[in-house]
């Protein structure tokens, strides 16, 4: 729970039969009890979206719990966790509520949670229960927690989703993960929001900032070299998406390419201008999916470097006779924070889709 939040939490201890009517009745009982226990009229039940998380095992439960710790503060919702759990003999559910109140006072705002569990063989029943529990007329955001989009349960849920959240970094190596996401976009006609892309938002903002204004724009057209490094044994989705983003936004075409699991070397061009791109995996120290971005023009070198210990980004611009440096806070990159931020935005699907396509091209796809 975030430190500035007062919480009450209650989850029914006994699994409930999965009867949507009974679940709604149970929610009503919780709200009555909440009022009777002194949270009174200062409690408000608020839902601005349906969040349906699909996952397996303890990792999914932990991720969903962490998200529901922070999400209702900004996006009060009905959160539904649809969990494939082979230890559960039949479809079962439990429900709960999470309430928070800002330290400034005001009402408790309460979000609702439903946990649904079933063995894989009952994925259709599980999906049907999810659909019955969606609050009408609200956006349905489907979140796949380490589950492939072609998983049977995931596919059923994605059909009902307005927005899809997943993490290419958890779907295998970058080529197959980005291909899988492209397949979701084609099949379900919804451009997914990729957490790996969300984690690069702060980096992209800072890179864009280097080139604001008329002078910056002129410099943008004079980029000679781009170097991107991740501190991992193999290339990451984050590093490739930043590379793809730069290539696509700058309208660069591929002239020459050499790629391996731990590096990409490319020569790109736009009209008569050539740009060299190096993306490298350089393990050592704590693993960082994106550690360093350096962009060189004839006049200056601009770089961003993440310091693992402090979590701060060091920003540096060097030119012939001077240098400017600063340190800024890196954007929080945990799932809950990325999800929270991503729900704020209506999305940047075209920019992401183009970056993903360019990344795949750089990976030889």
């Amino acid at each position, binding site marked *: 729970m975030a430190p500035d939040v007062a919480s009450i939490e209650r989850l029914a201890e006994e699994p409930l039969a999965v009867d949507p009517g009974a679940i709604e009745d149970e929610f009503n009982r919780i709200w009555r009890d909440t009022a009777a226990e002194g949270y009174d009229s200062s409690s408000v039940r608020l839902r601005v979206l349906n969040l349906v998380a699909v996952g397996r095992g303890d990792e999914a439960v932990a991720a969903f719990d962490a998200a529901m710790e922070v999400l209702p503060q*900004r996006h009060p919702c009905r959160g539904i966790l649809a969990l494939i759990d082979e230890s559960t003999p039949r479809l079962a559910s439990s429900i709960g509520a999470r309430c928070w109140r800002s330290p400034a006072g005001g009402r408790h705002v309460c979000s609702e949670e439903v946990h649904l569990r079933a063995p894989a063989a009952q994925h259709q029943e599980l999906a049907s229960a999810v659909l019955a529990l969606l609050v009408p007329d609200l956006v349905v955001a489907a979140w796949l927690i380490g589950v492939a989009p072609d998983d049977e349960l995931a596919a059923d849920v994605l059909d009902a989703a307005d927005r899809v959240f997943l993490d290419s970094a958890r779907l295998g190596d970058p080529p197959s993960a980005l291909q899988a996401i492209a397949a979701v976009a084609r099949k379900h006609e919804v451009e997914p929001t990729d957490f790996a892309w969300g984690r690069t938002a702060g980096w992209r903002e800072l890179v*864009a900032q280097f080139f604001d204004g008329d002078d910056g724009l002129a410099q*943008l057209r004079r980029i000679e070299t781009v170097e991107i490094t991740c501190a991992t044994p193999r290339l990451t989705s984050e590093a490739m998406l930043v590379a793809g983003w730069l290539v696509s936004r700058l309208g660069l075409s591929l002239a020459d390419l050499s790629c391996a699991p731990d590096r990409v070397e490319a020569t790109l061009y736009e009209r008569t201008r050539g740009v060299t791109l190096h993306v490298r995996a350089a393990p050592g120290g704590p693993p960082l999916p994106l550690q360093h971005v350096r962009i060189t023009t004839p006049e200056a070198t601009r770089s961003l470097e993440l310091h693992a210990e402090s979590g701060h980004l060091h920003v540096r611009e060097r030119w012939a006779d*001077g240098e400017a440096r600063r340190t800024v806070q890196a954007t929080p990159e945990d799932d809950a924070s990325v999800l929270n931020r991503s729900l704020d935005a209506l999305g*940047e699907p075209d920019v992401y889709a183009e970056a993903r396509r360019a990344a795949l091209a750089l990976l030889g796809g």
Partner: protein
Amino acid sequence: MTATASVAAANPLRAGLRLPRTPQACAVVVFGATGDLTARKLMPALYNLARERMLPTGFSVVGFARREWSDEQFRAAMKEAVAKFSREPLQDEIWDSFARNLHYVRGDFADSGAYVRLGERLAKQDHAHGAAGNRLFYLATPPTAYAEIAHRLGEAGLSRGGPDGGWARLVVEKPFGRDLASARELDQALGMVFRERQIFRIDHYLGKETVQNILVFRFGNGIFEPIWNRRYVDNVQVSVAESVGVEARGGYYEEAGALRDMVQNHLLQVLALVAMEPIASFQGDAVRDEKAKVFRAILPIGDVSAETVRGQYTAGAILGEPVPGYRQEPNVAPDSRVETFVAMRLCIENWRWAGVPFYLRVGKRLPKRATEVAITFNRAPLQIFREMAGIAPAPNLLVLRIQPDEGISLRFGAKVPGTRSDVRPVTMDFRYGTSFGVEPPEAYERLLLDAMIGDATLFTRWDGVEAAWELLTPVLDTWAGGASPLRFYEAGSWGPEEARQLIEREGREWHRM
């Protein structure tokens, strides 16, 4: 409220990002750098902008004031201020990076030599930080120093930006003049040195998220604008209630009073946002053009005695605690006739609002702190429930709460469960704090960022300031002439009885806050 499309087209990397653009490398020069405004508002705002990656790498701050401080003393004082007043805790590593670019120039505002030193310092920084001669001059000083500082900046050649073709902008705090003549005089003095597009008159109300939300509410939704006119609206009220007195600002308040301090700027700005016509985009001066049209359409107040009420608080109690009267406050004359409360009725004579009264109300030592816009709609044309229930249902009321507990509520009638057809008013409530749990940025963060970017949408333009003074200067003159008596009200009440009469004589009542 920025022009996103054209900027995104300019820098292709900006497409889809949180901000359409960030400022170019620049130096912010704060005059009055050792003062309260710098410590409480400006420096925490700049630090938070830096922390959130919204400032460019070549950004720097130069403090300018009379005190004999070194760069290090300035940094230490600002660190203390940020630690105390920032909405987010101070992080040492980020502060150290930010503080490297804080500098201090000692000088009197009237000393030409000090401006030469300032210019040299800025040139040195341009070179060191790659700031390209971009300068934002922020006047966090008493208004009496504005003209002098502007003149000296011009004299030193600093009003045109640096030699590399940079920009120079001037930010001035309210009050912008104390009547029409002094405002024109000040405008003329600034205009000798800076062009209108370089002058950013700050009204921190316009930086508040909830004030900006008035435009989103009106123009981002399809269902409200069609009824936002004289056919459906009975009256509009803009109220700013403060429970505090003048506290340590007695000296300032004796010169200002509630009309100058609040009505001329904050209340009229809010009124303009409520009353203005829709805009097609946020490009250029669209919002300020529409606001100016509203100001021009406000009818002059013909009978000041009948259309305005001025009051002053006497001793009373706030939240059960006894509080002194205004005349007993520090630095206030014992026979002061300065108003701490104003109520007035305005009419906007245009197609949309003809015949709809706009009531403004502002006061200190009222029972609670609240800023609200209340829009009362006409009653249903046929009162069929009056006969059945014996009482007409209350008219629909839309309240835009600007502070505290920011939000929007809509009152409507609902049937009381039972066999009778009793109607009871109920409300639908939206609360900013509960739907968006994060703390909104401080108004100064938004306004400083916009000034650095060069987006003047949320700043007041001279024609708006002039129109406000044209409207209110006759009121000040009439009050000064004694034609409209000063009314007294007990601290902890909702103002003088005459304020109630002002609205009740038209069969209306003040919205209960």
